[in-house]
């Protein structure tokens, strides 16, 4: 299950990589597949000669295995350059040319590629309702049915939050929509599944559209997909040679797509991996519970993401302290000059908790020893770093 350890070459020190929600290391299977698609099997799937035909056959095989991961049919998959493009395609595609007459629903905890796209629609005259978050980081659905309108075109709620790991009840959202519109023309439901893929089951049975990305599951960067249920009409953002059912024309990124499929196939079968993440999550929490200065902000959820605050020490300071020891985590994007985490703010966490938030995120390459190293360093950092009113 574990591939080779990451070693800091200069000092032969072990690197502890706990930022897998930012990106993951490409697994050997995917790297090999990508190299092959770049150097020997480099044909264009649209070419009619045998090299092109072989590329086409591989592309369609990849489409089948990726479709299975989203509970979709192969012909319902559209390959994109990643999650951001897929999310933009959904939002602008659903808005079409009459955005100003339409209404949209999303949540306060979405990724920037969703929130910023909706902000743009608002600027173009559309009406956007933003659902609040509960204190556990999930979307608060109490007011959801009342938010739905006759002219609602799209509801977009992420499956798993990228900062806290909170899992939203997309099935309930989908069923609410079906019940609300009951036989009438209804809006589409889209879910951003980037952080959910391989962690929780995803299916077009409970959504109309699902966004996927390769580089969060040990695949290459620049490769993503959108599962679009048959019958959902989206207007494309690009125009060209007709690839991907005209929804995303352009020569297919075959190395990226095949690498994505290879990475997916190399993942341990569900639910082996989530069980492993839950073990790491619980282990981390048990060690952190010994630190009175740590406040845990995540509430379980997907278990591959754990958000916590080291009270009194700014996120970026602790991040640099850990990085010096080759321990890589993420700040909750809190920064004195920059943006505060919009997710933690939407959870109504106090300022000092947001300012000191860190996110660790696991992959199958992590080991319990990584957590030991992390916690020892947190303790050391807490003792050595200057804190307001202390030292």
């Amino acid at each position, binding site marked *: 299950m574990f591939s080779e350890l990451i070693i800091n070459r200069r000092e032969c020190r072990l690197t502890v990589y706990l930022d897998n929600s930012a990106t993951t290391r490409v697994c050997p299977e995917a790297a090999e597949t990508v190299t092959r698609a770049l150097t020997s099997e480099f044909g264009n799937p649209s070419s009619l000669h045998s090299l092109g035909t072989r590329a086409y056959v591989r592309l369609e095989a990849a489409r089948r295995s990726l479709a299975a991961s989203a509970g979709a049919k192969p012909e319902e998959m559209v390959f994109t350059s990643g999650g951001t493009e897929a999310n933009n395609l959904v939002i602008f595609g659903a808005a079409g040319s009459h955005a100003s007459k339409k209404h949209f629903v999303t949540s306060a905890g979405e990724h920037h590629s969703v929130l910023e796209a909706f902000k743009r629609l608002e600027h173009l005259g559309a009406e956007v309702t933003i659902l609040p978050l509960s204190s556990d980081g999930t979307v608060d659905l109490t007011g959801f049915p009342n938010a739905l309108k006759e002219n609602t075109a799209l509801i977009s709620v992420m499956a798993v939050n990228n900062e806290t790991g909170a899992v939203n009840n997309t099935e309930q959202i989908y069923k609410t929509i079906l019940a609300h519109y009951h036989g009438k023309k209804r809006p589409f439901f889209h879910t951003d599944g980037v952080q959910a893929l391989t962690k929780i089951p995803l299916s077009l049975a409970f959504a109309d559209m699902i966004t996927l990305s390769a580089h969060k599951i040990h695949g290459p960067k620049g490769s993503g997909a959108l599962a679009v249920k048959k019958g959902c009409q989206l207007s494309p953002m690009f125009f060209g040679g007709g690839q991907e059912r005209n929804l995303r024309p352009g020569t297919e990124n075959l190395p990226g797509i095949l690498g994505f499929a290879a990475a997916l196939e190399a993942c341990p079968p569900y639910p082996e991996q989530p069980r492993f993440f839950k073990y790491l999550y619980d282990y981390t929490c048990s060690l952190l519970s010994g630190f009175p200065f740590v406040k845990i902000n995540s509430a379980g959820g997907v278990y591959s993401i754990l958000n916590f605050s080291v009270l009194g020490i*700014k996120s*970026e*300071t*602790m*991040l*640099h*302290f850990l*990085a*010096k020891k080759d321990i890589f985590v993420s700040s909750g994007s809190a*920064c*004195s*000059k*920059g*943006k505060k985490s919009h997710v933690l703010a939407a959870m109504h966490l106090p300022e000092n908790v947001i300012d000191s938030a860190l996110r660790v995120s696991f992959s199958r390459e992590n080991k319990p020893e990584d957590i030991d190293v992390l916690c020892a360093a947190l303790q050391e*950092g807490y003792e050595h*770093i*200057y804190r*307001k009113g202390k*030292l």
Partner: protein
Amino acid sequence: MKEVLLVKTGELALKGLNRGTFEEVLIKNIKRALLGLGSVEIIKAQSTIYIEPPAENFDFSQAENLISKVFGIAAFSRAAAVSKDINTILETACVYLAPILKTAKTFKVESKRADKTFGLTSPEISARSGEAILAEFPHLRVDVNEPERRVTIEIRERLAYIYEGKIPGAGGLPVGTGGYAAVLISGGIDSPVAAWMMAKRGIKLMAVHFASPPYTGERAEMKVRALLTRVGEYAGQIKLFIVPFTEIQEQIAKNCPEDLATVLGRRFMMKAAARLARREGAAALITGESAGQVASQTLQALVCTDDAAGLPVLRPLIGMDKEEIIRIARKIDTFDISVLPYEDCCSVFTPKHPRTRPKLEKVLEAEKKIDGEALLVKALAFTKIEN
């Protein structure tokens, strides 16, 4: 026909006997700015510097861009250089300037005859050229008061030069003619602007940055390097000193009154920068302070920091509003880098309520609570130097 760049020096002409030196430095700076474009030949005569490109495919637009950032240049023009034969001059003027004359409505010809042995006087040259242009472009009208296009013909010692209009230069004085000074650079909006302003007055720069790992990270240092690269397009090479500042800030925070932490930190920055400056032969410090902008920049706080410097502290932004500073930062292309959101040495140890009117005696007393000298010596010993 070949093309050259004519560079007009501005204020330099005022500098009397020093002019020779000033021009030499300017020529050296121009050469350095154009280094990437091949070896240009530079000739000076009267108040003009001629840049002659080495090859046919010289990138003039890139050269103009680089030249526009060299201090000491009032204006410059791209000109045609031809032999001093009146017929050649007239012909070239009509062909070389055709693209601009075609779309213009009015024009005027100005002539300068440096070579008094040339057969025609300046008014005669202007008259003949005007006639020739009118014959070629009958839609044009001569307007001597407010012409849309000013055609200039200069008869010099070796050649005649034909050009239209002038592109304003960066002004100021050639960098290197005004001495050497050390700029304290944090990564914010102000210090690069201050550095640029002093470079404009001919001062060569070195830079001192204070890094406080782990409170600040690698990106903050990369940001400072990026800023210096932008300023360096005007100011030439800037040697960068990165002083580790963590221990000093921690000691201040641990041992001194919280409300004086900022002013004490700044005193140590001044002390460290002044020692580095002396070691490098720099005569002054430069900061981006603007009166009253923040607690550490009130007049009383400046008195306290000045006291620690021991060198003159140049504060070119002292009387400027933030908006004015930002306008310059945008002009010199440092703004977008300055606003990148990384923690810097100033933002981490900021007390909740810093004293806005610190008294020097109180500050000196507080400073005694730590072994400043030992901390400074250590910080300077671990200072990184980058060229």
